[in-house]
C-alpha cells in the first residue's frame, strides 16, 4: 500500500490529547501529520470543556447580578439572553480552535482534514468530506479519537427533546424545564447553567449521591447548595424509560415520573473506537477502551492510543499528559509515565468542586490510619469579602507519615486552589511542607493551609 507522504508520526484526532501530542512531537524534531474530521481542538475546545466554561461564566454573572442587592447595587430590568450566552460560548470555542490551528502552523504540523482509519500499523487512510481518500504513512501512529456521549439502553438522543452535551452546548433556545439524567460533572454543570437562566431543573442520579466520585461530604454540601438554588435532586433512582409525550418528554424511574420539555443525557461517555480500524489490526480493547502500556503503546507495536479512548479518567488534562508521554516515547525518550493517582478532578458549577487523590472513605478502605482536616470558607477572610462562603477544603492525610492522601475542595475557585496540592503530591510533600509554606493573606488559598493545619490539630482560624 503506497502512501503519498511519509511522516515520523501521524496523529489521528486533534483534541487535547492529539494536538498536545502533535506539538510535543514536533518540538522533539519529528515530522507530524494530524488527521481531524472536525475543527482542531476536538470535543474539549469545540463542544466540551471550553464552551461550557463560557456558559458557566454567563451563569455566574447572572447569579452575581441577581444578588447585587447584597452589595448595595440595585439593578433593574435585568434581561439574561440565553441565545446570546450560547453565541458568546461559540465565539470562545472558535477563538480557541483558531489558536490550535495557529500552533499547528507555528510547529509545522500538517493538518489533513477528514476521517482517519488505520489501514496498517503505519498507514492511515483519510476520507475527506467530499469522499476522496488519501493515505498518510507514519513511522508511528498515535490514535486520539476521543469519546462521545453515551445514552441509556433504548433511549435515542435526537438532540431536540432528548439531548446530549453536544446539543446542550449548541442549542440557542433553552427549554422551560429539563430533566438531567446523571449527576456527574457534565450533568451538574448544565443543571447549574440552565437553572441560572430560569429553567426548571430536575437532576436524577442512579447512585446514592450527586458527584458520586467525590468525597461524601462534598456531595452533601453540593446537594445543599444546588437545592437552595431551586434544582430538584433525586438520587438513587434508576431510569426505566424515556418517552415523548406531546411536546414534552417523560422520564420513568423507580422513584417516580418526571416530565419536562427536554431531557439531557449525562450518563457518561464511551470511547470512539468504531471505524478507526482497530479490529482489523488486532488492537486489544479492554472494557471498550484501548489497552495501552505505560508509554501509551497499544498491543500493536508502533501504534499508540491516548486520551479518552485509552481509558479513564476521561479528562482533557489526563489526555494532554498522555499525549506528551506518547510523543516522547515515539521520539525515543524515556518519558515518565502518567501518574493516574494524581490527576485533579474538577467540576465548574457554583460552588466549584475540585479534588485530587483519595476520598476519606477510600483512604480508610485502603487500611490507612488517616488524619482529616476541614476548613470552611465561612472562616476565610477573602471568601467573606467576596461574599462566596459556601463550601470548605478537606485534607486527608496519612496519620503516620503526613502524606497528603487526598484533598477535596468545594467552594470559590476550588479548581484553581487544588493545584497547590497537585504540586505538593507530585513532589511528595507532606502536611508539614504545606504547613511551613507561607500563604498570602488574604487569599482563598489560606483555607488550604488551614485545612492542612486542621489535619494536624493546629488550625488557627477555627
Amino acid at each position: 500500500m503506497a502512501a503519498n507522504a511519509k511522516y515520523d508520526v501521524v496523529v489521528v484526532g486533534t483534541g487535547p490529547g492529539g494536538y498536545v501530542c502533535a506539538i510535543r512531537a514536533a518540538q522533539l524534531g519529528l515530522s507530524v501529520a494530524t488527521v481531524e474530521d472536525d475543527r482542531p481542538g476536538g470535543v474539549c475546545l469545540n463542544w466540551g470543556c471550553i464552551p461550557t466554561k463560557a456558559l458557566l461564566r454567563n451563569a455566574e454573572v447572572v447569579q452575581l447580578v441577581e444578588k447585587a442587592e447584597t452589595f448595595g447595587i440595585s439593578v433593574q430590568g435585568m434581561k439574561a439572553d440565553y441565545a446570546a450566552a450560547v453565541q458568546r460560548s461559540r465565539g470562545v470555542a472558535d477563538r480557541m480552535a483558531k489558536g490550535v490551528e495557529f500552533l499547528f502552523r507555528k510547529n509545522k504540523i500538517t493538518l489533513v482534514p477528514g476521517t482517519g482509519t488505520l489501514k496498517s500499523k503505519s498507514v492511515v487512510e483519510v476520507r475527506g468530506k467530499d469522499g476522496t481518500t488519501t493515505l498518510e504513512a507514519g513511522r508511528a501512529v498515535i490514535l486520539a479519537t476521543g469519546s462521545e456521549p453515551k445514552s441509556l439502553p433504548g433511549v435515542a438522543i435526537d438532540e431536540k427533546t432528548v439531548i446530549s452535551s453536544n446539543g446542550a452546548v449548541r442549542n440557542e433556545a433553552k427549554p422551560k424545564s429539563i430533566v438531567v439524567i446523571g449527576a456527574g460533572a457534565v450533568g451538574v454543570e448544565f443543571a447549574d447553567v440552565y437553572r441560572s437562566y430560569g429553567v426548571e431543573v430536575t437532576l436524577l442520579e442512579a447512585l446514592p449521591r450527586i458527584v458520586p466520585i467525590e468525597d461524601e461530604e462534598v456531595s452533601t454540601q453540593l446537594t445543599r447548595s444546588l437545592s437552595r438554588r431551586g434544582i430538584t435532586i433525586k438520587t438513587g433512582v434508576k431510569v426505566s424509560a424515556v418517552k415523548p409525550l406531546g411536546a414534552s418528554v417523560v422520564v420513568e424511574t423507580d422513584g417516580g415520573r418526571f416530565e419536562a420539555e427536554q431531557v439531557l443525557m449525562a450518563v457518561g461517555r464511551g470511547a470512539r473506537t468504531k471505524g478507526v480500524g482497530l479490529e482489523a489490526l488486532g488492537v486489544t480493547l479492554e472494557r471498550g477502551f484501548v489497552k495501552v502500556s505505560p508509554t501509551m503503546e497499544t498491543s500493536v507495536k508502533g501504534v499508540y492510543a491516548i486520551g479518552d479512548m485509552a481509558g479513564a479518567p476521561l479528562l482533557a488534562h489526563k489526555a494532554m499528559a498522555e499525549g506528551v508521554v506518547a510523543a516522547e516515547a515515539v521520539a525515543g525518550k524515556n518519558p515518565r509515565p502518567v501518574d493516574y493517582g494524581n490527576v485533579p478532578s474538577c467540576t465548574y458549577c457554583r460552588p466549584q468542586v475540585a479534588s485530587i487523590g483519595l476520598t476519606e472513605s477510600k483512604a480508610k478502605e485502603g487500611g490507612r490510619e488517616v488524619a482529616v482536616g476541614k476548613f470552611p470558607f465561612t472562616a476565610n477572610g477573602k471568601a467573606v469579602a467576596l461574599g462566596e462562603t459556601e463550601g470548605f477544603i478537606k485534607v486527608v492525610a496519612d496519620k503516620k507519615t503526613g502524606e497528603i492522601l487526598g484533598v477535596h475542595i468545594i467552594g470559590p475557585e476550588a479548581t484553581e486552589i487544588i493545584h497547590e496540592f497537585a504540586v505538593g503530591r507530585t513532589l511528595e510533600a507532606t502536611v508539614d511542607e504545606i504547613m511551613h509554606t507561607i500563604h498570602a493573606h488574604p487569599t482563598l488559598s489560606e483555607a488550604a493551609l488551614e485545612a492542612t493545619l486542621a489535619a494536624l490539630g493546629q488550625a488557627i482560624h477555627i
Partner: protein
Amino acid sequence: MAVTKVVMPKLSEQMESGKIIKWLKKEGDRVQSGDILAEVETDKADVEMEAFGSGVLRKIVVPQGEKAPVGTLIGVIADENEDINALVSQAGGPAPATAAAKPATADRPAASAAKPAMADRPAAVPPQPKSEDHAARQPAPSRGPDSPGGARVQEAAAQQPAPGTPQPVPSGADGGRVKASPLARKIAAQSGVDLKLIHGSGPGGRIVRRDVEAAATSPAATAAPAAAPALRPVAPSVTGPEYEDVALSAMRATIAKRMPLSKAPVPHFYVTSEVAMDRAWELREELNGLEGQPKISVNDLIIRACALTLLHHPGVNASFQGESIRVYHRVHMGIAVALEEGLITPVLRDVHAKSLVQIAVEARDLAERARQRKLRAQELSGATFSISNLGMFDVRDFSAIINPPEGAILAVGSVRTVPVVTDQGLGVGRRMALTLSCDHRVMDGAMGARFLQDVKRLLEAPLRLLV
C-alpha cells in the same frame, strides 16, 4: 486511658545497661507510637529508642547522661489526666521485664545465643537517619582531623572495604545533602532505611517514596563509599603531660570484659594456610568492570567461599554447649568491622543462601551502618561463624579471638604480590594468608585444616563462587 511504661530496652545479647545520650522528647510532649523518644548508648552502638504507646511523655525517670539497667523504668507515657504517681514512685527498682517495651529477658542463658536476641520484636527501632534534623543526630564519635583528599584515599581503600576502615565516615561526607522527597524521608525514618544507601529514581536522582519502600523490603543497593583518613604529621613533643587516662567507651568496656572470657576458657588453636589469589583477583576485576554491578570486594569472595564451605563442614559451623555441641544448619556470618573506638561484628544472616552480589551489597550496607553506629539490634547477634579481615592494613597474617559461643573465626591477611615458584621457574603471584582460630572443644586440628583447605580450593578455582 493507657499507660505505657518506657523501659531501658535490651538491644543486644550482652547488653546489661544503657546510657541515655539524649531525650528527644520533653516532659509534656505529645508522643505517638513510633516516635523516637531518646538516643541510647549501648555496649555496641548508639540506637534510637522508639515509643510503643501514644499519649503524653509525662515523666522522664532517667535523665539525659545517666545509665540505667536493662528493664528499668526510664519514663512514662500516659494520657494527660492519668494518675502515674504510683508508677513513678516505684521507679528506682528495676521494672519487670514484661513492661510495655517487651525487652528480651535479661537472664536468658547465653547458650541460646544463636537465636537473635530480639527476633520477635526489637524493643527499639534503631538506626535511622533523621535527615531533616542534622543537629538531632546522635553525636558522632570524636574523630581525627578532616581528611583532605579523602576521596582519593578511599578509592584505594575500597578495594577491600568491608571491615575495618579505621575511622568512621566523617560527618562531612555523611552530612552531604541527600536528595529525597519529604515523604521519602519520613518513611525512611520510620522504617529504618538509610537514605544515603539508596539510589533515587525520581527526577535528577531524587529519592522518592517507591525507592524507600523498595529498600525497606530488600537491603539497600549501594553504599556510599567510606572516606578514609589521610595521614597527618604529628609534631613530636617533649613537653606537656607524659600520659593521659582515657575513659573506656561503652564499646571498649565490653570488649575488655568479653575478650578474656573468650581467650581464657576457650582453648584456641590456629591453622594457617596460604591461598593463591590470582584467579580470584582477576575474577573480581572482571566483575567490577561490568556496568551496573555492585562492587565486589575480596572480602565478599571470602565470605561467599566460607559460607559454601561451611555447608560441607558443619562441624566448623558449630558451638560448644557444655553437654553437647550444637551444629548449625544455617550460616550466619559475623563480619568484624573496625571502628575508631573499638570493633563491632554485625551479622549477615543466611549467608549460605545468598549470591555473591547479595553478599556484596548487604555486607557493605552492614559495614557502612556499623561505622555510623546505625545497626539494628538484631543485626548484632546470632552469628555462627565470623570473619575478621585486616588486609587493608598490609597485615601478612594474624590470629583472631573467637567470639563465643561461635566455634571458629577466620582471620584474613592482605593479598600480597610475591615471588612464587612455578613449573617454569620463578614467577609473580598474589597470595593471601588465612588463619582459622578454632575452639578445641568443638573441633580438632584436622577438621579445621580440612575446612581451610576447601576454602582455599574454592578461592583458587573461584568460578564456583558465582554459581
